[in-house]
């Protein structure tokens, strides 16, 4: 089965600073891929680059190929002009933006804005459009009457649901959800995740779920890709990556997740912070913060398959078990 989406060698620069530096990703039809990583690692930039929505101060390169069902020719996004992208956007791939507080035009009604998206990509009778909007709102758990309201008349959770309904309006085969639960309380979080899961099953959607919260990703995703400093450092099926991580960064991320019934201690935070794109370390980008760093890490590790269906960018993968961390080595290993 050929991939629905295939990103190869994606690079995004802001001036001369690399924000995304050689990312390969693929998504199968109907699959949910989680994109994990700290803030600033390039996740959102990757999503915006995919839809070519980055401002003019950014340059991007690499190939991005979309193969939606019922479309003859594969769509090479990197070659599309702005006019060409306008046809692809929302019709084949849509995006639920981070933070729905201000994602709707404040002076226009909600239903008009959903109708706008539909009418941009299809010729449909007004009555059909109205019906579809009602359906969409119901699907995301809202009453259709809410469509007549303005954005400021909706709560945060309702706005988030409206954005999801909007994202589904043109029946795309791929939806990207960027931190869909971050601004919400825990109860709302669970509801939204459950909604996304249900929609995936009902509509056969493929989903790219971006989040810094591994817990959120573990529930909804089939596969997960971990990003660090503009690069993918590990990919694999969610179960495998969680039970047997193959990259020290993934391991530390997982360690920081509290386990119910487990020891009542906070996991030690990963010392230091992600590197500044203008000042990247030589070799493996995680080296300055990695408890297992060694000489070899001055060489750039490639993302390679280290276990069945699981790839990691670490010289010492596959890891069968994790030796005790040498914290002291971190300081010396820097530079």
């Amino acid at each position, binding site marked *: 089965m050929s991939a629905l989406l295939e990103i190869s060698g994606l690079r995004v620069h802001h001036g001369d600073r690399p924000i995304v530096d050689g990312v390969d990703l693929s998504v199968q039809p109907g699959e949910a891929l989680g994109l994990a990583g700290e803030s600033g690692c390039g996740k959102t930039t990757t999503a915006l680059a995919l*839809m070519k929505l980055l401002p003019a101060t950014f340059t991007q390169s690499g190939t991005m190929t979309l193969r939606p069902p019922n479309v003859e020719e594969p769509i090479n996004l990197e070659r599309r002009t702005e006019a060409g*992208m306008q046809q692809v*956007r929302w019709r084949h791939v*849509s995006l639920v933006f981070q933070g729905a507080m201000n994602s709707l*035009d404040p002076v226009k009604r909600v239903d008009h804005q959903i109708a*706008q998206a539909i009418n941009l990509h299809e010729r449909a009778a007004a009555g059909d459009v109205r019906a579809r909007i009602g359906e969409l709102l119901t699907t995301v758990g809202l009453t259709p009457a809410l469509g007549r309201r303005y954005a*400021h008349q909706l709560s945060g959770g309702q706005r988030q649901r409206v954005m999801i309904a*909007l994202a589904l309006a043109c029946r795309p085969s791929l939806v990207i959800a960027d931190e869909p639960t971050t601004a919400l309380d825990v109860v709302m979080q669970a509801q939204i995740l459950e909604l996304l899961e249900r929609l995936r099953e009902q509509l056969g959607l493929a989903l790219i779920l971006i989040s810094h919260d591994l817990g959120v990703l573990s529930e909804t995703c089939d596969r997960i890709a971990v990003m660090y400093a503009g690069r993918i450092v590990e990919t694999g099926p969610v179960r495998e990556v969680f039970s047997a991580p193959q990259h020290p960064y993934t391991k530390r991320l997982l360690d920081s997740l509290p386990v119910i019934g487990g020891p009542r201690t906070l996991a030690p935070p990963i010392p230091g912070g992600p590197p500044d794109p203008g000042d990247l370390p030589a070799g493996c980008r995680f080296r300055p913060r990695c408890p297992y760093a060694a000489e070899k890490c001055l060489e750039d590790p490639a993302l390679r398959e280290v276990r069945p269906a699981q790839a990691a960018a670490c010289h010492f993968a596959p890891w069968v078990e994790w030796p005790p961390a040498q914290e002291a080595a971190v300081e010396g290993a820097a530079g």
Partner: protein
Amino acid sequence: MSPRWLAGKVAAALLTFAFVLVFNFFLFRVMGDPTTQLARLPRATPEEIQKLRANYGLDKPITGQFVDYAGDTLRFDLGTSQRTRRPVWTEIKDALPWTLLLVGTGTVLATFIGAWLGVIAATRRGKAADDGLLGFSLFTYAAPEYWIGIILILVFAVWLPIFPAGQQVTPGVEFSSWLDEAADVAEHLVLPGIAMTLMLLGQYFLIMRASMVDVLTEDFITVKRAIGLPWERVVRQHAVPNALLPLVTLSSIYFGMVVGGAITIETVFSWPGLGELSFDAINDKDFPVLQGTFLIFSAGVILANLLADCLYFVLDPRVQAT
């Protein structure tokens, strides 16, 4: 429209006007004791002055005088012009429509052109067009509007006699229809109208530009691009409507400027409005007229602010929730 909100705004406006009345009264009493002006009358004997004082009610206590003044004002009795001997209110009534015509034309043109230029500058931020427009708006702010008016006369009425140099109609001409007369007025309106528009243009441009720049950073603009809307339509259908809202309220700061410009421009073009009335009153030290025009100008600005508030209320669905 929430009646409570509206009532609050109207009450505030009335209160402000009341303060203008008090201020106006005490200013002219305190600083220009009418007795000294009465003494301008040739050879007035003390008895005659005393009689005149009684006539004008100047022998009453000051609060009594104020009540008289307030009562008179609200009945549109603003005194008599010392120059023409006609009631001040009549002078004002005759002049007001001309000022409204000039100011209205200038404001409308300045708003539309300024807003249009503001959108252009905001969507080309940092480029030559933006810098050029910013420079132009700074120049129109710094250049005195009456100087611009004089230059317009010089170029378009003296060197190239295309437009009339002043007044509102060609003197001594009989018009066969009101359409012809209107056309004549329109011809006379061109140069002062341009001066008025140029004076206000810069301010409205700057407000709209800043407003657009703000709106273009909002999330929903990116969302509109994401759904596949072409950029030109994103700007026109979503950025501009949201940017116009602050324009309505922010431009109300400049209503006072409009009045000031009206005075000087009308003077330059001998335009028979409140501005020229004020100018004549300045030269003749015609205090009743000055007092009356100051009152009308203040009332006009207060009213304009109130209308701007109402307009904003109608346009912004978020405010209607209050």
